[in-house]
């Protein structure tokens, strides 16, 4: 996929997020003009982006939505949930297209039909919405009727808003910049107050104008106030040039092309630079930053190649109104990735964090030089004690720097929970409609930070928990009324930082977990024996919902019954190095709590020796270490086990299991590390216990990625490679 399309995809996804956010807020507050403007701008920019990559179908679908939003802004129609839904559906379709493009870089086939479906949806939404020609606003007709001689191409209404002056705008100066302005009027408003009561800095003026330029040019001239301008093209307008550029702009760009055609080598680099720069500037001026960026990329290619060809092609395409593609031949396609994975590869980083890294690099350089000094001292006559002191100092400095460096690097990977939370209001809204249980979602702690991997992997587990809360936790409106609760349930999605952990909670104010039902279902499905169930405390019974094969849904609904239960949620949390618990308050609701590590790259491990080899065990899985007499480890079937505080713990001989040779010097007692993973308790027999370490875990790659039972590797201080065990695989 070329860089241009990649940029397009990133930009579009950001715009879609913004538009979705604005639309959902707008649904709750239909009078929020700012959100309406925000949504409109996002759709408008998306449409522009579609035009730049020549994706006509996407442009048409977005145009239909934009028209509807535009009539909402003009107050011609009220904001209704149906219209919001239609706009969201349009965005859904665009997301599907983007995913398809992400896979192969091509504009998806069949997009025209899908776009037509979206447009039809808006047609149904109301004849006023997309009727062509669109329903004329009264002010437009009156203005044209007053000035039949103007023969204008566009008609515009510009309401700068009361704070325009305070924001430093001069509306008349902006209007003076509209090319070929033919008529300027002030709209009749409410009567003027007496001069004594007039606030000279509150703009009360609304301008109406007729002009001979294109809508795009007018919009560019009034660009400083895009939210308050309404521009309508009139039927009689001259068709815009294919490129959408004014005649002047075209002339200037054509001149640049001539400059490039002069193939004389002398001064070529300079000519390319100035021509490319000029074209890019014109495109930016014309409100086409993406095309400008394309030209700049072509310029860079040309400069690298030492010939103007890439740039000439790009500029030619601009004039022809085509989208710019990289002239460079496509390289071999990288291995296929799923859209989600590919999207996760780009990372936007706060500049401050990069600066911190740069500073640290500087300090590391100083430390390196100091170490060099120590070496030269050692080569001299410095005695051992003095040398040791010197090295100790240097080690302390390096220790601090490396810690800082590591923290800085990890912080680059840090994202705010907002990234995942912001997707849920939309989805909860859909669930509410499907289930017919009114509920609203409250998010707290959006700004809580966690490692990118954690934040991005939380989406599915959280979605599942939310579905469950709404499907099973929240009662029907009638039952809620009977219990004296407000008809709409509140589901709270909350994140906070607690030391090295990030806590994410989903809390509902439903009925809580029906313990009797959980017991009955667990017995019926054989999740636990009746005796075990009888002995369980209430919290233990609640925890059964995470057991594999458990589902309390009496009927499989489209929401919860997708073949994965809460056991999948628990597995996901454990994959991230965390855990998940559930608390239930009978009649008052339930809380599912994820306790996740802040950073996934850092692991605390316990080193052990088995079969003459060193292994690492993730410390969070270690419950305790015990010494057990060999006689107390009894064979049970094909394996062995011992009893620890009335519980049977299966024992795995680590040395044998991992194929290392058994330790010849077997002792009378066995060292057992008792671990818990994936809900299983197990004992690992090892020869010796080692130290606790903080390590950066490197996942197994390439040939070794298929190796069972190993989570990753890390390097020890003496240069040896330490294998860190994947206990879930070993015990599972």
């Amino acid at each position, binding site marked *: 996929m070329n860089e241009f399309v990649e940029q397009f995809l990133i930009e579009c996804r950001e715009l879609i997020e913004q538009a979705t956010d604005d639309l959902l807020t707008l649904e709750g507050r239909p009078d929020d003009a700012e959100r309406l403007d925000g949504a409109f701008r996002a759709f408008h920019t998306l449409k522009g982006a579609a035009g730049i990559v020549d994706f006509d179908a996407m442009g048409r679908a977005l145009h239909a939505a934009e028209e509807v939003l535009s009539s909402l802004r003009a107050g011609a129609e009220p904001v209704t949930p149906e219209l919001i839904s239609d706009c969201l559906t349009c965005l859904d379709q665009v997301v599907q297209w983007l995913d398809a493009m992400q896979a192969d870089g091509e504009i998806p086939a069949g997009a025209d039909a899908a776009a037509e479906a979206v447009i039809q949806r808006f047609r149904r939404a109301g004849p006023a919405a997309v009727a062509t020609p669109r329903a004329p606003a009264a002010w437009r007709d009156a203005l044209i009727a007053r000035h039949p001689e103007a023969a204008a191409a566009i008609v515009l209404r510009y309401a*700068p808003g009361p704070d*325009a*002056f305070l924001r430093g705008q*001069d*509306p*008349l*100066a902006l*209007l*003076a910049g509209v090319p070929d*302005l033919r008529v*300027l*009027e*002030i709209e009749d408003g409410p009567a*003027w*107050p007496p*001069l*004594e009561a*007039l606030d*000279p*800095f509150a*703009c*009360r*003026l609304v301008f109406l104008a007729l002009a001979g330029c294109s809508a795009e040019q007018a919009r560019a001239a009034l660009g400083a106030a895009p939210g308050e301008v309404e521009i309508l093209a009139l039927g009689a307008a001259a068709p815009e040039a294919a490129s959408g550029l004014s005649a002047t702009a075209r002339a200037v760009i054509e001149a640049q092309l001539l400059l490039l055609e002069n193939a004389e080598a002398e001064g070529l680099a300079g000519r390319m630079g100035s021509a490319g720069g000029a074209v890019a500037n014109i495109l930016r001026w014309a409100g086409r930053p993406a095309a400008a960026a394309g030209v700049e990329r072509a310029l860079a290619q040309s400069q690298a190649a030492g010939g103007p060809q890439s740039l000439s092609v790009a500029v030619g395409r601009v004039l022809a109104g085509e989208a710019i593609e990289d002239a460079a031949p496509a390289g071999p396609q990288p291995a296929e990735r799923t859209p989600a994975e590919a999207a996760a590869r780009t990372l936007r980083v706060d500049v401050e964090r990069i600066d911190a890294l740069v500073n640290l690099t500087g300090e590391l350089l100083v430390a390196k030089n100091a170490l060099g000094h120590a070496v030269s001292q050692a080569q001299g006559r410095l005695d051992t004690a003095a040398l040791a002191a010197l090295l100790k100092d240097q080690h302390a400095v390096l220790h601090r720097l490396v810690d800082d460096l590591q923290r800085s690097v990890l912080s680059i990977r840090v994202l705010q929970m907002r990234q995942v939370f912001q997707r849920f209001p939309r989805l909860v809204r859909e669930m509410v409609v499907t289930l017919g249980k009114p509920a609203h979602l409250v998010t707290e702690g959006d700004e809580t930070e966690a490692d990118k991997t954690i934040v991005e992997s939380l989406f599915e587990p959280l979605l599942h928990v939310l579905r469950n809360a709404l499907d099973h936790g929240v009662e029907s409106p009638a039952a809620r009324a009977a219990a004296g609760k407000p008809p709409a349930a509140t589901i709270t999605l909350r994140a906070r930082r607690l030391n090295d952990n990030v806590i994410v909670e989903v809390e509902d104010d439903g009925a809580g977990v029906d313990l009797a039902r959980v017991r009955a279902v667990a017995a019926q499905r054989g999740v636990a024996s009746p005796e075990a169930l009888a002995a369980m405390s209430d919290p233990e019974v609640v925890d059964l919902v995470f057991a594999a094969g458990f589902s309390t849904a009496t009927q499989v609904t489209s929401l919860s019954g997708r073949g994965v239960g809460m056991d999948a949620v628990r597995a996901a949390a454990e994959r991230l190095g965390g855990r998940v618990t559930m608390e239930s308050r009978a009649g008052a609701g339930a809380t599912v709590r994820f306790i996740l590590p802040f950073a996934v790259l850092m692991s605390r491990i316990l080193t052990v020796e088995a079969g003459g080899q060193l292994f690492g065990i993730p410390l969070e899985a270690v419950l305790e270490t015990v010494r057990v007499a060999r006689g107390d480890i009894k064979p049970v079937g094909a394996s062995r086990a011992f009893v620890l505080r009335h519980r049977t713990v299966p024992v795995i001989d680590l040395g044998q299991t991992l194929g290392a040779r058994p330790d010849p010097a077997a002792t009378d007692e066995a060292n057992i590390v008792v671990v818990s993973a994936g809900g299983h308790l197990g004992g690992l027999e090892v020869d010796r216990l080692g130290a606790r370490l903080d390590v950066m875990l490197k996942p197994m790659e390439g040939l070794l990625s298929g190796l069972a039972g190993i989570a990753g590797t890390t390097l020890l201080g003496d240069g040896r490679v330490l294998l860190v065990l994947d206990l879930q695989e070993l015990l599972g």
Partner: protein
Amino acid sequence: MTVRLADGGVVELVGHCPSEDAETLLAELIARPDARVDWRACESAHTAVIQVLIAANVTPAGPPADGFLANRVEPLLNRR
């Protein structure tokens, strides 16, 4: 100072009149409700200044020095 009081109680707009001039002009017009305004030396005026002229319903002595003001803005004044 681009708003000034000249002989005979005439308020003159001179040169480039920034938005702050709106307040000065308004104060002058409140102090002298029958004052005449002269903007023949005006090269540009912020919209806030124009708004005061509109609100006060005055017709300044013109035309102003700038083409846009003369052609597009002057017709907006004294339409009430």
